[in-house]
């Protein structure tokens, strides 16, 4: 904790960054939340522990935060993966963001460029959590109609509040496909078809771009496990096309590229 605060203080004092994006105390004891520190004397608010799960990379593309100046950002593996994926999609330039890699032992590693983030992440496991793997396996094991009923039931609570989209660091589009209305591709209504099509579209647009942070599901006020849709696709993309989001700042977009020998077994 001290290492993080000292680092933040130094960075703000010498002007190498204008804002430190990190975790501070939330409004209730068991909660952490994003803080945006702009003065060295504010660094006491910083901490890092297992309450800190929001993917802060979402703020790197928020106009109001960008306007604050160059950021340093506390970097959990999920946040660092998001940064690399944002880099791969040309949303942030090298050197524009200073990541502060943190680990459970309170060590802080300054990661000034994408290369250093890649190296930092390389030895870390990028698997889904055991719980996520278990959830995916459980759904895969269902029959087709069980899966359909499961998802229609899960999605029946969806309000279309777009918390999933808002919390996702890769959902940075200025105008979302769901808002394209000439024609209205995805129904605005939160009726069952509207909800299903929205989540299918969201998953497709994140196919192979999802860094498996799980923020969408954590943001969902109804706790719908929508992260499984994109996580399943990222597993599939990794398996089939050997592409993993958030491992490199120069990664190809899976649906923007191809190999002549991409294998399938369903086209006649």
């Amino acid at each position, binding site marked *: 904790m001290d290492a993080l605060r000292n680092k933040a203080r130094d960075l703000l004092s010498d002007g190498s960054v204008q804002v430190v994006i990190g975790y501070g105390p*939330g*409004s*209730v*004891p068991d*909660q*952490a*939340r*994003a*803080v*945006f520190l702009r003065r060295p004397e504010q660094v006491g608010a910083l901490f890092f522990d297992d309450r800190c799960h*929001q993917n802060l990379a*979402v*703020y790197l593309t*928020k*106009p*109001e*935060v960008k306007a604050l100046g160059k950021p340093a950002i506390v970097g959990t593996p999920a946040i660092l993966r998001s940064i690399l994926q944002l880099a791969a999609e040309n949303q942030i330039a090298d050197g524009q963001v200073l990541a502060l890699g943190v680990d459970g032992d309170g060590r802080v590693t300054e990661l000034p460029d994408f290369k250093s983030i890649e190296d930092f992440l390389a030895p870390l496991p990028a698997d889904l959590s055991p719980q996520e793997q278990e959830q995916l396996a459980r759904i895969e094991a269902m029959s087709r109609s069980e899966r359909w009923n499961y998802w229609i039931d*899960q999605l029946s*609570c969806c*309000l*279309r*509040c*777009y*918390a999933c*989209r*808002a*919390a996702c660091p890769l959902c940075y589009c200025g105008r979302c496909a769901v*808002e394209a209305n000439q024609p*209205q591709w995805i*129904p*605005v*209504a*939160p*009726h069952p078809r509207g909800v299903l099509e929205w989540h299918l579209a969201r998953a497709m647009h994140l196919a192979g771009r999802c860094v498996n942070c799980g*923020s969408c599901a*954590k*943001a969902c*006020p*109804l*706790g*719908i496990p929508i992260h499984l849709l994109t996580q399943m696709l990222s597993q599939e993309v990794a398996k089939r096309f050997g592409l993993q989001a958030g491992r490199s700042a120069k990664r190809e977009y899976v649906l923007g590229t191809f190999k002549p020998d991409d294998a399938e077994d369903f086209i006649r």
Partner: protein
Amino acid sequence: MEQRLLKRESVGQLFAKLADAGWRIVGPCRSGEAVVFKDVHAPQEMAADYVQTTLSPKSVVFPRYELLLRYRFEGKDVKIDDEQITVVPTVIFGLRPCDARSLAVLNAVFSWDYQDVFFKTRLENTTIITVSCTTSDPYCFCTSVNGGPGDPQGSDLLLTPFDADEYLVEIVTDRGRAIVDQAPELFAPAAGGEVNKVRVLADVPVRFEMSRLVECLPRVFNDEAFWAEQAMRCLGCGACAFLCPACACFDIQDEADRQGGVRYRCWDSCGLSLFTLHTSGHNPRTTQGQRWRQRVMHKFSYFKDRLGTIACVGCGRCSRSCPADMNLAEHLQALAETSA
């Protein structure tokens, strides 16, 4: 207020009587980790313990998706089928006192000036059986917005879990009495005069002084930096508005094929950037700070000036479910304190 006693185990019998008389009963049920309102037939279907339901019961009177009219295309002709609303008399059971108060806020919107027949019809057919709060969490702030864990305002019947097997029943309105009259044998007279329910109610601390907040809001309006700072971590989703029992803003959309279609309304939120965006590209509220300010001002200043009530009941849902921990009560407290 007339008091009665209702055995908890009798609730099932009450439900059966109501169902026989043609009532639909909606109560809080578990859905994964969430607690939402669903049609129920027996008390066992309902969630046993919850501080507050995840969704408010507002969808009973203001569905998140509701048809306004249907139309059919016949050649170049259009036939409008006026959407005739028919509503089954409905009991909402087990909502909290804060939610019971929210219906009056919604009613203020839907019945000032033009009368919204959809909302009004649903409301007229709704009876509110509230269960007082014996527990609260740090997000609750009903007592700061003129409510309380055992507040009868807005309820037709108010049930307070008085001990392990009995509810104290307060008959708040004639509509509540009509429920009691459905099964009078289940409602025993309260012995020994007025029962003091306060000892079982949750202790919800007052976070800020309402009058001070209301008085300071117009003054801080122009402090853009203040609002920008409060909204820095706001992600701009609609969760707070959609979970809010008192938020009434909506969108109107069409969906049609070549035979015909529907015009419907669905919930919308002032926190979403598209809410006020003009087709020309001009947006009166371009930043999240401005949108957050609108949310606060609308609820606590404009609404009060215009419709005579604030549009918040202190249920805490907006804060409890916010993915970025935007805590309304905390921000209101900060506002009220700046005025000091």
